[in-house]
């Protein structure tokens, strides 16, 4: 298909005026009635990572290191407890400056301990505020309970 290419076609003045009016009226009309499309499905929107807790208020994490291994930007660092098996980690830091919010850590977690349900970080004063530790991840966006076995919206991967 070769496109039609006409150079300097003369156009009618009355037609041009009608064209302008045809454009102007809907433009002013759209000030009162927005023509945009709004999303209805707001549940599936992903946010920043949070750590969930069990019913007794302790961390659900069992330091299996799967999320640290899968993270493509190496933003999670975990320090496990050497004395007990399947115990909650001593330290759990997320460097939010490196995080790309891809959601792979949530996919990797076998006990639903990390989730992408938190508030997105806004502007902050210092860089240090953006390396989030265990306590901050548990509380900054409210308390989330781990729901093993319940139906959750599906994530990528």
């Amino acid at each position, binding site marked *: 298909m070769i496109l039609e290419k006409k150079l*300097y076609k003369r156009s009618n003045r009355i037609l041009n005026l009608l064209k302008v009016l045809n454009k102007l009226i809907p433009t002013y009309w759209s000030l009162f009635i927005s023509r945009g499309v709004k999303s*209805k499905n707001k549940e599936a929107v992903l946010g920043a990572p949070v750590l969930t807790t069990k019913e007794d208020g302790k961390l659900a994490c069992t330091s299996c290191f799967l999320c640290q291994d899968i993270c493509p930007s190496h933003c999670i660092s975990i320090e496990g407890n050497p004395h007990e098996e399947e115990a909650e980690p001593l330290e759990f830091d997320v460097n939010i400056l490196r995080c790309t919010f891809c959601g792979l850590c949530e996919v990797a977690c076998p006990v639903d301990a990390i989730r992408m349900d938190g508030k997105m970080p806004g502007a902050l004063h210092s860089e240090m505020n953006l390396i989030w530790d265990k306590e901050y991840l548990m509380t900054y966006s409210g308390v989330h309970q781990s729901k093993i076995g319940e139906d959750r919206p599906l994530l990528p991967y």
Partner: protein
Amino acid sequence: MFDFQAQENEDLIQNRIALLERMVSKFGDKLNFENPLNMSFDENLDSYYPLIKELKTFFGFNFFLNLWGTDTEAEGQTCLQVQLLNMDTHQRLVIKFMVPEGQVVPSLTNLWKGCFWCEQETWDMLGVEFSEIPKERIFSPDGMEGFPLRKDFRPKPFQLKSSKYEFTPDPRVDREIWKQRTVLEKDFFLGEVNGPVKAILECDEDKVARGRLEVGFLHRGIEKIAEGLEARQILVHLGRINMNCSSFYEQVFCDGVEAHLDIDIPERAKALRMVINEIERIFEHLDTLGRVCDNLGCKPFLFECLEMREGLTQILKEYSGRRMPHQIIILGGVFKDTPKGWITDCLRVLEIVQKKTIEISRMISKSTLWMDRLCDYELDSNQALSWGVTGPNLRASGVNYDLRKVNPHYFYDDIDFEIPLGINGQCYDRYLVRVEEIFQSISIINQLLDNLPLGSHLSKDARIYIPFKEDVYKESEALIAHHKLIKEGVQLPIGEFYNSIESPNGELGVHLLCNNSSRPLRFKLRTPSYYSGQCFSDVIEGGEPDEVPLVISSLNISIGEVDR
């Protein structure tokens, strides 16, 4: 009735057989037919230039696709690979040369101008020297020691050097006249063009005599990063190369890996991937259209384009839960079936997009002002082929080459659509081609959504499929499979593959060298903007320095794609 299509296909097959017979009689057993469309063979470095010249002149390999190097296990040896394309038979060919340390390789810039950045990048990343190519760092910072893509590279602290580009004397004019020219440097950021870039212009009074782009301000080293990651992690980085068309990058990689592992994905997944890709194509073209309008000072049309883009973003967000890199395409299909009511939403938004695009194009296409400004900056077909330009920019100069028609994947064979062609490759032709492609994409999506196949959206092959969370909580088998896939990653068997797709800017290819582990040995991308970025220096000749952003946005040079 005479069937033209069948006759054309028969001719194509006969041409290809004739070419293969000639190749076999010339090169004999060296040819490797592992992948019929991508032949490869090894050759001695002494016959580098004569061999490639012979292939270009006598065997019809007139299109240069890519040139890259790989650091091999043998000490001090680099494997240099050149990829060519025969446009009559759509035959791709890879030729491999072993280059010892310190040997100077003759440059191919006499045959194709588009090799220039490729050869400069090969020196920058691997230390392979080319004759006639200045030893300048194109992507990595000046003053750095060592070559990043070598396996024994360890980063060291270094002092940053500031270097200024200086034009060599122009052979076309007298030296005295050349000395009176002034050099202008202009920096552009996101907004006017698609990413940070610097244009260096040599001006003769108020006209540009010569110009070039300086890139590398957005270099992230994705090819180096990918060597340490497994397939699922590479996907996350790939989607962020060009935010406007991230699904193409994901699909070209997923498709290649699936073909390498012999996995057949369900039909519904194929159709949904096509729908997402075509939405992204409209998205990228609207972005280009808006930017061209912006650079000409037509702000209202920019806002119209942004509003349409917002509608498309909203439907992708409704699907996936995120706005820009939506990550819908994953290994084995798409990550989720269409949500309830998504198809009607999608069709409604596309109707609005079509209506508004018709409105805009009616208002500006025939306008005298629009033509005055855009009928300029010509890129004719010979230049485009020499620079390696593909996609709408090539089609605007009249060359009918589209991978969706030439080498149709998925259901592109069964769908009615046409390839718009321009005449002489001016900015105006590029604009017309892009607007027409928006309408064609809308018609493709409508046809697909009307006949969406039923079935699963994800292939459940054990090599790539991560089980659902509910199964992981309950069944021990699923838990073991889950742990294994996440700890070890997708195992890629030994071999190499090349896969390409028609992205909104041109041919997008990925080349992967695997070695029986989950991490690739070498990962190479052929991004379309890399080549249209080089042809800028031809297009801008004789133009005005003020219209540089117009030329860049009209060619749609996406800096994220160039720098990677």
